[in-house]
């Protein structure tokens, strides 16, 4: 395992650099939150929203939900008509459209998130309401499970002081996004810079012509060298990934752990890590001068993160930019991320779009690894 140990030894030497990126990352995350809090919060804090309800169910639970909602917001009924709904959202005559499907009660009680919420794009106000709705329904479920009838459960919930709701909704509404939401959004920056730097530099050292020749003349087979190298990559990547999760737990662990979608977040970052590893690998193969690694990593990671929507809300990027962005794995990571942080209820549609984003990232990772292997083979032959 000499080669593996060599990788690790060099990684250790570069820890300072990793730390620097972690500090930058944490700084950006925290300050973004701060900025967001300053601009967005006061505007709609205790605001009543205009909510249109399309009630296809009409059952007791649906009615109870609507009447409860009316106490807190301006609720109007609406036909199930795509055009009308689109228009209302487009002209912002409503903030949010809540669709209650048929057999809502049954679906809801079986734990399925049957509600569909459509909000005006780019606003956070809806998150506030949707969190409230979620909490309300959860309470109903809890009472039902405890043996109360639907109407009793509704009554209990109506009368209950919804302090818990306020707290939860408050923090989401105040920031537009949870702190960990920001952290996850900037994650590509941390992964790309730290992994590309460290692994790029290590690989550059190992692929320096002299060292490569020297290693080839040694008693360790090429296959073994490559194997140990890949192992080292995976170890470094996994360590980075675990560390980032740990970092998030430190920044905002309590609310992250309370998020029902936390596993999706974690899975998404794992995929991102794989993609970044592959990118770092290719970078290391193509570049064999440490100084060049330095000068490539910064524009590469900043560019990818910007275009992928890690710094700027995706809705603020132009359509043309987004068209390009789709060819970046970071974009798909952010799509999943945005979906997760805006998602109020995990419907099948939401789940599908999450899986799609993750699937595309996986494809990116596989494609990049394929390219890396081809490049490495090519490089081996020209001697």
């Amino acid at each position, binding site marked *: 395992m*000499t*080669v593996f*140990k*060599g990788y690790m*030894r*060099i990684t250790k*030497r*570069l820890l300072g650099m990793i730390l620097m990126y972690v500090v930058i990352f944490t700084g950006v995350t925290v300050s973004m939150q701060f900025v967001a809090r300053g601009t967005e919060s006061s505007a709609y804090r205790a605001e009543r929203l205009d909510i249109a309800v399309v009630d296809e169910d009409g059952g007791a639970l649906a009615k109870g939900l609507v009447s409860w909602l009316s106490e807190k917001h301006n609720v109007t009924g609406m036909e199930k008509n795509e055009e009308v709904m689109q228009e209302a959202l487009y002209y912002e005559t409503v903030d949010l459209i809540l669709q209650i499907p048929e057999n809502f009660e049954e679906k809801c009680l079986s734990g399925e998130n049957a509600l569909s919420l459509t909000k005006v794009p780019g606003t956070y106000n809806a998150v506030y309401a949707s969190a409230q709705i979620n909490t309300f329904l959860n309470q109903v479920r809890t009472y039902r499970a405890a043996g109360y009838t639907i109407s009793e459960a509704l009554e209990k919930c109506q009368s209950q002081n919804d302090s818990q709701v306020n707290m939860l909704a408050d923090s989401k509404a105040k920031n537009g996004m949870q702190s960990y939401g920001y952290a996850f959004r900037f994650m590509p920056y941390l992964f790309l810079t730290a992994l590309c730097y460290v692994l790029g*530099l*290590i690989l550059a*050292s190992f692929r*320096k*012509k*002299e*060292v490569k*020749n*020297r*290693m*080839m*003349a*040694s*008693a*360790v*087979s*090429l296959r073994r060298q490559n194997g140990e190298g890949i192992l080292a990559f995976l170890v470094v990547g996994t360590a980075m990934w675990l560390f980032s999760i740990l970092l998030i737990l430190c920044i905002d662990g309590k609310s992250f752990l309370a998020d029902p979608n936390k596993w999706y977040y974690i899975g998404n970052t794992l995929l991102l890590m794989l993609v970044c590893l592959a990118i770092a690998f290719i970078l290391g193969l193509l570049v064999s001068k*440490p100084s060049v690694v330095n000068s490539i990593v910064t524009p590469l990671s900043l560019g990818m993160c910007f275009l992928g929507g890690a710094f700027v809300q995706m809705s603020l990027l132009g359509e043309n930019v987004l068209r390009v962005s789709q060819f970046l794995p970071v974009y798909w990571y952010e799509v999943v991320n945005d979906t997760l942080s805006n998602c109020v209820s995990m419907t099948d549609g939401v789940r599908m779009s999450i899986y799609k984003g993750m699937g595309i990232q996986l494809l990116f990772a596989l494609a990049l690894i394929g390219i890396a292997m081809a490049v490495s083979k090519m490089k081996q032959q020209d*001697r």
Partner: protein
Amino acid sequence: MIKIENLVKRYGPLVALDHLNLEIEEGEIFGLLGPNGSGKTTAISCLLALLKYDKGNIEVFGKTMTPDNYEVKKQIGVVLQNVAVFDEMSVRENIDYFCGLYVSGKEKRKALTEEAIRFVGLEDYTKMRPRQLSGGLLRRLNIACGIAHQPRLIIMDEPTVAVDPQSRNKILEGIKELNRKGATIIYTSHYMEEVEQICSRIAILDHGRCIAQGTKEELKSMIKTGEKITVEGILMEEENLPDIRNLPHVFDVTYENQELTVRCSGAKHNLVRVLNYLQEKDIAFGRVFSELPTLNDVFLEITGKELRD
């Protein structure tokens, strides 16, 4: 122990090795001497299977050398011409790393590493990074990385470039010591003094061909020059040259930049005869040397050019 037969290596139109034949016995210090670009590094690279070659056959320890012949590679120590170390590791870590490519036991490796450090005299620099070392110290580190695992065959490609004379002597002595302990050594250089000093057998390379091979005595006896007389700071007319040329045993005379060089074959009293002539003609002169032939003379006579340009 090593047999290179009809080795041909081309870089496009350039023939870097032209039907090279070498045979190296166990226990030798074998010198590969040749000017820049003569194909020394290319020959070594082919020998180590780092380079594909166009034609020929290479056998090491009686087995054909291939890129994945790790059993053979395990017994070879390599000091390549270009320093190959990791900038991110300290001197000791580097030696330990390269030793670890051959030796797995931790304790054993530690002992070997320390011994290698002593061998090249880097005791005071073990914690430094290669970047902090001077050129000569870096070369010494390169050597230590190559020989730490105490291999049976050591291949060194110009290991002493940029090393100061004192350290160089120490290293050369060390190489002889390694040889005494049983290692066979292939030593590449364009310094003929070095090669003469340590090598038991020498091959002289030029344009990818081996132009002469043998012990230094054998090589020197191959040429006409038995004695070379150099007279510095001398002012004389061109017409005197034929006279000197006609002295007994003299076969070549050159006069350039107030320096007269006379080459004589064997025989005694050549110097006396030349000086007598100068005295007779009342020609003043400065310092006078008389030298036995060097490998440079061998090279000069065979190729018509100086080994060092």
